[in-house]
């Protein structure tokens, strides 16, 4: 499944990677005078999992949001599977943005479930209302997905009736139900109580093993090491270092990466 040799640190960047699902080149983004993304290059192959790590404010979440069009990049290109090709040198049209969003689905740090809709309605909103797929088909699919994450009994509950871990699993099901090519996770366990983190991470790991392509922003280094096919360390709006997870996490080449990892491992 892996299109590139994971031990070759330059391979994931090879523009020629024939099986690349996502290719980002020279992505730039500023908020006012504050340049949050300098020039981001990254590639995710089909079935690969890219983990973005780095200090808060480094720009990793902004990268993710640009991939889903929640932020508009100021420059650079995003290509998805030879189907969507956006050059942010000129502002994208609504149609182009819609095409970009159509390819990926995001899981949010704060879940962002729709509080006025039941669990099942949350999952169906995308495929049924937006994608206009047949009701019987999407409902069966949604129920199967809910069953898979152990929440079929909660299908008629409202989000406030669920624990954080359950809400996030619904958030993941909502993303899967869109049938995206790429899953984007924005610190999916950062707002969970510690004892609920495991369930959500286990589910994401299962999805990775099944071959879903993903980009995950995370602070769970152990998880990144085990699940990701590539880790990129982001700092100051740049990818400082990237490559095989064990390489980056255990033998970082850059001083900044070393400092960051040290701070995470020995917080006090």
């Amino acid at each position, binding site marked *: 499944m892996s299109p590139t040799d994971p031990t070759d640190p330059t391979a994931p960047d090879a523009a020629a990677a024939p099986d690349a699902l996502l290719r980002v080149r020279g992505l730039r983004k500023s908020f006012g005078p504050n340049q949050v993304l300098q020039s981001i290059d990254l590639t995710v192959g089909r079935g690969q999992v890219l983990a973005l790590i780095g200090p808060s404010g480094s720009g990793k979440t902004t990268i993710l949001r640009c991939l889903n069009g*929640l932020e508009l990049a100021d420059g650079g290109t995003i290509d998805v599977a030879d189907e969507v090709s956006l050059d942010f040198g000129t502002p994208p049209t609504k149609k182009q943005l819609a095409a970009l969003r159509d390819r990926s689905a995001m899981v949010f740090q704060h879940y962002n479930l729709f*509080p006025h809709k039941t669990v099942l309605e949350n999952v169906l909103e995308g495929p049924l209302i937006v994608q206009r797929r047949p009701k019987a088909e999407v409902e069966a699919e949604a129920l199967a997905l809910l069953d898979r994450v152990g929440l079929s009994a909660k299908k008629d509950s409202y989000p406030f009736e669920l624990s954080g871990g359950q809400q996030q699993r619904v958030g993941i099901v909502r993303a899967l139900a869109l049938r995206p090519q790429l899953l984007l996770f924005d610190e999916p366990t950062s707002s969970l109580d510690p004892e609920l983190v495991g369930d959500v991470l286990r589910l994401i790991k299962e999805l990775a093993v099944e071959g879903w392509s993903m980009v995950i922003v995370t602070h769970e280094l152990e998880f990144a090491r085990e699940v990701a096919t590539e880790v990129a360390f982001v700092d100051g709006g740049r990818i400082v270092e990237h490559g095989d997870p064990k390489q980056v996490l255990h033998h970082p080449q850059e001083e900044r990466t070393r400092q960051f990892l040290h701070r995470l491992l020995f917080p006090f």
Partner: protein
Amino acid sequence: MNQSAWDLFWTSLGPIVHGAIAGTIPLALASFAIGLTLALGLALMRLSRRRWVSSIARVYISIVRGTPLLVQLFVIFYGLPSLGILIDPWPSAVVAFSLNVGGYAAEVIRAAILSVPKGQWEAAYMIGMSHRRALTRIILPQAARVSVPPLSNTFISLVKDTSLASLILVTELFREAQQVAAFSQEFMLLYLEAALVYWVICLGLSSVQSVLEKRLDRYVAH
């Protein structure tokens, strides 16, 4: 109260309640419905990124809130005819009250829309919704919940403000009371009676409000 006062109370209750049913209540309902529609448009204009669009709404709201309702009513009914625009009492009242409610409710709706967390917009966009669909399916239903108490306030104020329509000859609750009072010279009795009927209407509205709030609160934690 002596017997004749009681008799007058009961006999005048007929025209007063009739004034409420034929005048006050439909006047308030029609004005509120039109005003709320106007308010939604104004709220969305106020939230527009285009400067000139939000400026128009801002100026409108400022004028409506900065001038007395009675003056607005008189401009429309007694003022416009000098420009050749003649409007009957009833439609004049509906126009004035709708424009007025529009200005006040616009700010309520704007605040309610802003109170919905940004993440809700993002989740809606993420699943592929357009701005319009995100607004109607995700944002407005949540904003509705927040705006029920302040909009109920607006509506209750409106019901009482419709008494001003008596000054442009609309037959409604207060005008009926005035006429009986003028005829019988029992001012205290008739005006207290009118007040009582307004109060009963507003009590009814308050209970509608709490039913509505309970219904819209079913998806939030208590």
